[in-house]
């Protein structure tokens, strides 16, 4: 899910860059030197994973996975997604350079939403189903929130984009479902195999106890 160059008006583009700068500033606070390679390597993994296309009837959709970034990198998911968006714009004009700001808020904001929902899981008893369910919900809602930002960016640009915004939201319904299932499965996998990758994982010690 991207917005392309040439659509949005100047105030929306500017708002995108200002918002991105602020969010990046907040989410990059107290950054350790050690974290730089870690965030970059995981960003690269997500960039590559989003190239995967999943067949959907006669067509196919590619994974967005911003929810998964949220539940693995926590607050740092925002700069990570911002990097991925910037690289996609630079490497294959996917999105575009002038819309890096808006796209970062759209996808990175989704990552933050996913992280906040993911953190709510601590209020529920742990079990084998908890991580997949919360991962799935977090990913679905991150796509929902990205869709809302996309629609807002279009509608604030001009009245004439209302219909387009509606169709864009509609087109995201299958993606919400697919992302939810894929990320849910992935969260379950990670909780079993390498729980320390997941963000806000407190009780890893218990799991490994004999």
């Amino acid at each position, binding site marked *: 899910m*991207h917005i*392309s*160059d*040439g*659509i949005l*008006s*100047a105030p929306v*583009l500017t708002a995108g860059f200002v918002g991105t700068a602020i969010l*990046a500033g907040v989410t990059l606070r107290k*950054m350790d030197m*050690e974290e*730089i*390679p870690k965030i*970059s*390597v*995981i*960003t*690269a*993994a997500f*960039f*590559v*994973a989003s*190239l*995967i296309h*999943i*067949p*959907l*009837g006669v067509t196919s959709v590619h994974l967005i996975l911003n929810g*998964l970034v949220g539940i*693995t990198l926590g607050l740092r998911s925002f*700069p990570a997604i911002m*990097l*991925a968006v*910037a*690289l996609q714009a*630079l*490497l*294959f*004009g*996917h999105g*575009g*350079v*002038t819309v890096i700001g808006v796209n970062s808020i759209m996808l990175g904001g989704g990552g933050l939403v996913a992280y906040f929902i993911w953190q709510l899981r601590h209020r529920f008893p742990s079990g084998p189903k908890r991580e997949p369910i919360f991962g799935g919900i977090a990913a679905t809602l991150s796509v929902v929130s990205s869709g809302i930002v996309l629609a807002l960016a279009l509608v604030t*640009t*001009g*009245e*004439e984009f*209302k*219909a*387009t915004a509606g*169709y864009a939201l509609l087109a995201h319904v299958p993606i919400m479902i697919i992302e939810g*299932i*894929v990320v*849910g*499965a*992935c969260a379950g*996998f*990670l909780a079993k195999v*390498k729980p320390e*990758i997941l963000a806000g994982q407190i009780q890893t010690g218990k799991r490994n106890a004999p």
Partner: protein
Amino acid sequence: MPLDIDRFAHLETSIHRWDPRVKILSLGIFMFGVAVLKALPLVAIALIMAMIFIKITDLPFHFIYNGLKWVAVFLAPFFIIMPFSYPGEAAFYIWKLPFAWEGLRLATLIFVKAIAIVMTTYAIFGSARFDVSMIALQHLKCPKVIVQMLLFTYRYIFVFVEEMKRMDTAMRCRGFVMKTNLNTLYVMGNFVGTLLVRSFERTTRVYKAMLSKGYQGEFHTMVEFSAGWKDFLKAALVLGVIIALLASELLGIFRQAVFGWY
């Protein structure tokens, strides 16, 4: 999908020889200028400019095509949706659907702008080694942390594309076929998880290796820039064109879109 944007960085053209700092700044301003234009003739001139940039950089068309293809795929629906959903008077009706020329004009405007901007992006980043472009960005006051992460990420993308190809081959050897069903989605979830675990483990190794080579949160480079009058002349040319375009936009020489673009 070819991801190495700097595959043709070895060419020797006047854009390749342009000081990367001056090039990024002036062509960057050009791109943002194009993004806010809203008169079709002016945007057409911008597209011709972008084509000239590409012509000068000598980048082969099939290379640019990879980027333009995505723009076309993304914007194709606009040509169908916009004419039928544009508010205001309809020119005529197709099966009771109101068709407005204004909508079609807007779709064309968006399309041409996007193509021009993506072409300019290729002219900027296709004409210098990626690391050189990034160091130039750092000289232009882009935060050091972000530049470093971009460099790392860029390098690892290629490693993980290979990793993913290996995993994909292994899965297909075991008889996995992608279908539209729940099982495929579960398998893809685990696939992504495995990719993450492998990359995570690689990070720890990479970081230790970097520390042992003396990494202290700083990249040192032998790349040095020097901007001369030729670099500034090129910048003046590009900026002159975009200022002229924006000026004729503001003076309203050409008819603009009726609905809000500002």
